[in-house]
């Protein structure tokens, strides 16, 4: 068994931690050694291992989980975006009713933990006769929560638009819906690429919570591997790095998208 990392964790049998000169040592098993110090204490020492090779045969299973995470996130991002656009339109509309309603939605879903929202849907929906699987429940919950954050980003993007630009569209006779679709939204989306990216990265991280409703996405399948291999440290360490790599690459894509969409907005005569 290749040991990538190993060191000694020494505990004196008399209690307390520390180093002490060794007299002799006896190996009980590969991981545990009983050492006898010159001072007469027995010392317990364990060899700590960090061994990634045991994960090798579980990689296909983990990739399945990754694929599920990818699917869930992709659908939820689209769901959040659609919902966020509608809610942002409602929040910036002149209708007081729509305004209030959408503000309440955003406020509620931003201030209640996602896991509580998830349980509300997961345990609550069957109660009112809606039987859907964990996957659909997860996607719905993620989209609704993501929609609240997305709408907030788009809304502030819209509010940041130069009022004169909207006025120019108004006086040229464009209808409200046309102004929203052709002027307000494209401008707001361009300026909101980065904050939207943060929302979506957060959504990827939040999707790990879906493992609590029996969904074997990346985190869920890692849990299974951890319990099968008895090597939770390696499994969760790799999982942590995998998520970080995933979100880092997403943020690189977002940065590129931002530059691409705003390539014509730089000041200066070409």
């Amino acid at each position: 068994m290749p040991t990538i990392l190993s060191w000694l964790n020494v505990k004196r049998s008399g209690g307390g931690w520390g180093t002490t000169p060794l007299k002799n040592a006896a190996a009980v098993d590969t991981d545990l050694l009983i050492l006898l110090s010159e001072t007469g204490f027995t010392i317990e020492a364990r060899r700590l291992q960090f061994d990634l090779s045991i994960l090798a045969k579980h990689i296909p299973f983990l990739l399945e989980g990754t694929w599920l995470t990818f699917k869930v996130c992709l659908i939820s991002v689209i769901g959040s975006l659609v919902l966020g656009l509608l809610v942002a339109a409602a929040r910036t509309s002149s209708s007081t009713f729509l305004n209030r309603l959408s503000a309440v939605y955003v406020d509620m879903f931003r201030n209640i933990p996602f896991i509580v929202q998830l349980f509300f849907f997961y345990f609550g929906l069957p109660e009112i006769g809606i039987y859907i699987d964990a996957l659909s429940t997860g996607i719905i919950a993620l989209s609704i929560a993501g929609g609240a954050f997305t709408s907030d980003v788009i809304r502030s993007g819209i509010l940041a638009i130069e009022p004169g630009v909207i006025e120019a569209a108004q006086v040229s006779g464009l209808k409200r819906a046309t102004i929203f679709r052709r002027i307000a939204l494209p401008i707001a989306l361009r300026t909101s690429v980065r904050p939207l990216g943060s929302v979506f990265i957060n959504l990827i991280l939040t999707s790990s919570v879906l493992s609590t409703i029996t969904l074997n996405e990346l985190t869920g399948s890692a849990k299974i591997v951890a319990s099968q291999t008895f090597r939770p440290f390696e499994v969760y360490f790799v999982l942590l790095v995998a998520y970080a790599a995933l979100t880092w690459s997403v943020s690189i894509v977002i940065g590129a998208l931002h530059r691409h969409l705003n390539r014509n907005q730089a000041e200066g005569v070409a």
Partner: protein
Amino acid sequence: MRYGDFTPYDLVLLLQGLSVSLALFVSTTLIGLLVGTLWAVIRFYRLPVLAQLVAFIAELLKNSPVLVQLFLVFFGLPAFLKINVTPTEAAVITLSGNSAAFIYVIAVSAIESVGRDQLEAARVFGLNRWQILRRVIAPQAAAFAVGPLTGLLVNQLQVTSLISVIGVIDLTKVGNILNLRTLKPFVVWTIVGALYYLTAKLVAYAGARLETRLRAHTKWKGL
């Protein structure tokens, strides 16, 4: 009274859960503030290796799910170091570390928000780096940081709900227990949600109050 009905004791249970959530929120916020600020100071002094290490750890913690961090500490550390980690210990370690990472980022940008010209002026007056940090940067950076910090804390309060997954009896775990016993998910999760919502509003309100006070203070003091 049937077994599945709500009892007055459930209210006590909910409040207990809420206080566990709050206690963990407050303690991990304080530890996070301490650690995160320390990391920012390390960066301010541009300590070689340490500064890079801190930046890397913060990025890693910011870009991975808290749930996974929690599993790593609760299931991973005991198996690796052959030590015992209780759910509460795991919760404190994970949440503190996660808060520290975000607070580090806020603190760094708060320090950078103080104009370079001020630092140069302070250097001309013969202040050393520590004095500049204490007397010039800290008061202004604090006022700058309160806003983002409030947003972060509202978020971190919600993040505490994840510790229910490793068995800490916090508000969410109490919700789970009541949900299983009463089989009234809508009532249970609405109440739990409302309690979280009100607490979040309270945190946001306190942050806003503090911000106005700090801003007024710096305004009055002038430069």
